[in-house]
C-alpha cells in the first residue's frame, strides 16, 4: 500500500459530500422537530460540515506528505540493515535513493549491490507511515465533521461561519502571491549580502571592468557599469526611441481618427502583439534584424560592426513595447474630457492642432507614467538581449557594437557548471537585486504619476 494522494483526496471529497448532505438533512430535521425557522438556509449547514470535514484533513495530508519521506528514511537508517552503509556523502545518498525507488515500485531491481538489503526496511517503513498518516487523516476528517455536525441547531449561524471560512481562504490565497514575492526578495537579499561580503558594493555599482572569474574573487572584475550602461542603452534609450513615437502615434490615430470599426479590430491586434512570447522576438532580433543592421553598418562604412548589436536588440525590444506604450497613451488620451477637445475645436482649431496643443499636453502626465512602466519592463526583459545583444561587456555608445545587459549577464552567470557559493554565481543575485530595486522604484514613481493624473480629471 502506498501513499496515493490523489485517491485520498477523492476519498475525503466523497466524505465531505456525505457530510454536506448529512449536515443539510440534520438542519432541516432539527428545524422541523423544534418547529422554528432556520437562521441559515440548509445548504449553509451542509457547507459548514463539509468544510470542517475537508479542510483540516487536507491540511494534514499536505503537511504529512511533506514530512513523511524524511520520517521513512530515518526509520530505515535506524534499522539493523543500514548499519554497514557508508557514513556520508554521495554513495550513501545514491544507495538510499536506489532502495527507495525499488521499494516504491519505480524500479524493478536494485542497481547497487549494497541497496538490496535496504529494500525491505524501506517497504515496511513506507507502509507503516502511510498507515499512520491515512488513519490520522481520517480521524481528523471524522472529528472535524462530527464537531460541526453536532453544532447544528436551527438558530446556529452557519451562513456567517461559512462566509468567514471562505473569506479566510481568499485571504490565504492572496497571501500566497505576496508571501512568495516577499520570499524571493529575501532570498535575493541574503545571497546578495553573501556576495557583498566578498566584493564591495561600490565596486559592483561603480566599477567599469566586468570580467567575473570562477574561484576566489579577483579585484576589478565585478564592475557593473558596462552592464548598467548596456541595459540603459538598449532598454531606456534605443527601445524608447522606437516605442514612444510609434506608440503615441498609434494611440492618437486610434483615439482621434480611427473609425469605431478600425478601433475594434486594431486594439485587440495590438494586444495580441503584446502577448507574443519574447523568445519569438528574440529570434526575430537575432536572425533577421541583427544581420540586416550589420550589412547596413558595413555599407555606411562601419567596418567593425558586430552581428550582435545594441541596436538590433533595442529596436526589437522597442517593437515589443509599442503595444504597451500605445495602450497607456490611449487610456490617458481617452481620460482627457471631451469638453477639452470641444473647447479647442470651438475656437477654430483643427483636429490636428487640438491633438498637439491640447490633448497630448493634457494627457502627458499619464503618458509619462506609462513610459516609465514601459522602461521598467524593457530593462527587465531578458530573452531578446540574450539572443541579440551579446555577452561582451563593452562600455560604448556605438549602437552597432555588441553590448550586454544586467539580465543577459544573470543568465550567463547562472548557466553552465556552477558552485553555488563562488562570487561569480553570487554576483547574479546582486545584479538581480539592483535590477529589482530599480524596477520597483520606477514602478512606484510611474503608478503615483498615473494615479495623480487620474485624480486630476475626476
Amino acid at each position: 500500500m502506498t501513499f496515493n494522494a490523489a485517491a485520498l483526496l477523492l476519498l475525503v471529497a466523497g466524505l465531505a459530500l456525505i457530510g454536506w448532505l448529512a449536515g443539510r438533512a440534520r438542519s432541516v430535521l432539527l428545524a422541523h422537530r423544534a418547529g422554528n425557522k432556520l437562521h441559515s438556509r440548509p445548504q449553509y449547514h451542509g457547507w459548514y460540515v463539509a468544510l470542517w470535514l475537508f479542510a483540516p484533513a487536507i491540511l494534514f495530508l499536505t503537511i504529512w506528505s511533506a514530512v513523511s519521506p524524511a520520517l521513512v528514511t530515518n526509520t530505515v537508517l535506524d534499522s539493523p540493515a543500514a548499519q554497514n552503509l557508508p557514513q556520508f556523502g554521495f554513495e550513501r545518498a545514491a544507495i538510499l535513493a536506489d532502495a527507495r525507488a525499488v521499494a516504491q515500485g519505480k524500479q524493478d531491481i536494485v542497481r547497487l549491490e549494497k541497496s538490496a538489503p535496504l529494500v525491505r526496511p524501506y517497504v515496511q517503513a513506507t507502509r507503516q507511515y502511510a498507515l499512520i498518516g491515512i488513519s490520522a487523516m481520517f480521524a481528523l476528517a471524522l472529528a472535524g465533521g462530527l464537531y460541526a455536525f453536532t453544532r447544528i441547531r436551527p438558530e446556529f449561524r452557519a451562513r456567517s461561519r461559512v462566509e468567514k471560512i471562505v473569506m479566510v481562504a481568499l485571504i490565504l490565497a492572496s497571501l500566497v502571491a505576496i508571501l512568495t514575492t516577499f520570499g524571493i526578495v529575501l532570498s535575493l537579499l541574503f545571497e546578495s549580502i553573501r556576495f557583498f561580503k566578498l566584493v564591495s558594493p561600490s565596486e559592483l555599482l561603480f566599477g567599469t571592468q566586468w570580467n567575473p572569474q570562477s574561484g576566489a574573487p579577483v579585484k576589478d572584475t565585478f564592475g557593473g557599469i558596462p552592464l548598467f550602461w548596456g541595459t540603459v542603452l538598449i532598454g531606456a534609450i534605443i527601445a524608447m526611441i522606437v516605442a514612444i513615437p510609434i506608440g503615441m502615434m498609434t494611440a492618437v490615430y486610434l483615439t482621434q481618427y480611427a473609425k469605431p470599426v478600425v478601433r475594434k479590430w486594431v486594439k485587440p491586434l495590438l494586444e495580441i502583439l503584446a502577448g507574443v512570447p519574447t523568445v519569438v522576438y528574440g529570434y526575430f532580433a537575432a536572425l533577421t534584424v541583427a544581420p540586416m543592421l550589420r550589412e547596413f553598418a558595413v555599407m555606411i562604412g562601419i567596418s567593425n560592426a558586430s552581428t550582435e548589436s545594441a541596436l538590433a536588440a533595442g529596436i526589437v525590444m522597442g517593437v515589443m513595447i509599442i503595444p504597451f506604450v500605445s495602450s497607456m497613451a490611449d487610456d490617458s488620451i481617452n481620460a482627457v474630457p471631451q469638453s477639452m477637445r470641444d473647447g479647442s475645436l470651438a475656437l477654430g482649431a483643427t483636429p490636428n492642432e487640438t491633438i498637439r496643443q491640447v490633448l497630448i499636453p493634457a494627457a502627458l502626465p499619464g503618458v509619462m507614467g506609462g513610459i516609465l512602466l514601459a522602461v521598467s519592463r524593457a530593462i527587465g526583459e531578458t530573452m531578446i538581449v540574450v539572443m541579440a545583444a551579446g555577452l561582451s561587456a563593452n562600455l560604448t555608445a556605438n549602437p552597432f557594437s555588441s553590448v550586454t545587459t544586467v539580465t543577459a549577464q544573470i543568465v550567463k552567470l547562472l548557466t553552465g557548471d556552477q558552485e553555488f557559493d563562488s562570487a561569480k554565481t553570487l554576483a547574479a543575485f546582486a545584479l538581480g537585486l539592483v535590477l529589482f530595486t530599480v524596477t520597483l522604484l520606477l514602478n512606484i514613481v510611474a503608478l503615483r504619476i498615473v494615479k495623480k493624473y487620474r485624480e486630476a480629471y475626476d
Partner: protein
Amino acid sequence: MTDMTSSELYIADPKMTAQNVNVFYGEKQAIKNVSIDVSTDLVTAFIGPSGCGKSTFLRTLNRMNDTVAGARVEGKIMLEGEDIYAPSMDVVQLRARVGMVFQKPNPFPKSIYDNVAYGPRIHGLAPSKADMDVVVEKALTRAGLWDEVKDRLGESGTALSGGQQQRLCIARAIAVDPEVILMDEPCSALDPIATAKIEELIHDLRGKFAIVIVTHNMQQAARVSQRTAFFHLGTLVEYGKTTDIFTNPKQERTKDYITGRYG
C-alpha cells in the same frame, strides 16, 4: 408661427439666419423645421424643457455637430449671407467667427495667459509677443476678469474658481474676436454671485457680438435677453420679444412652460 410675428420682430440686418433647419441623429430627428434670425444688437435666449433640442440647434450654428458621429443637418444657415454648410465654407474660419461657451467651464490645463492666447495664436491674430499681450489683456478685461488675474497670468487656468473659469472661457472665446458667441447654459455650474457676474458681462457684450444663450432659468432669460425662442420636442413653438413671451405668450404650450406646468 414665426411668420405671424415676423413683421413686428423684423431684424433689419441679421447676423445669422436659419431657414427650415432639420437636424437628425441617425434616424432620430432632433430639430424639426426651425427658422430664426440672430442679431448683433440683441441677445437671443433659447428656452424649453430638457431634451427639446436647444443645444442641438445651438451647435448647428457653429457646426459643432460635425464632431458628432451620425449627426446630419438639413436646411440653410447663413452667416452674413454666406451658407455655413456650403462646401466652400471653412469650418475652422466659421468657428473663429462663431465662438462657443460651454455648460461646464472647460479651461485648458495651461496658464491663464495661454488659455486666452490659444485662439489668437492658432489664427495668427497677434504676430508679436507685445501684440499678444494686448489681445490677452483686452479679452480678459472685456470678460471682467483682468483685475482678478492680472498678477497671476502664469498660473494654471484650472486653478481658478468655477465662475472665474467660465469667464476665462468667455475671454478665450472673445479673444479671437468672433461675430457671434453661443453660450450653452453658461451659468448652470455656477453660484448666484458668479452667475450675476456673467449676466452683467453678457449685458456689456451686447452690441459688440451677437449673443445666443441657452438657459433653463426663466429669470435669467428675462434679465439678459431681448428675444426669446421657446423650443418643445424639436420644434420652435414661439419666438418673440422676451417681454412678450414672458408676459403675454401666444401659445398655450409656451404659457404652460413659463408658468411651470411642465419642464
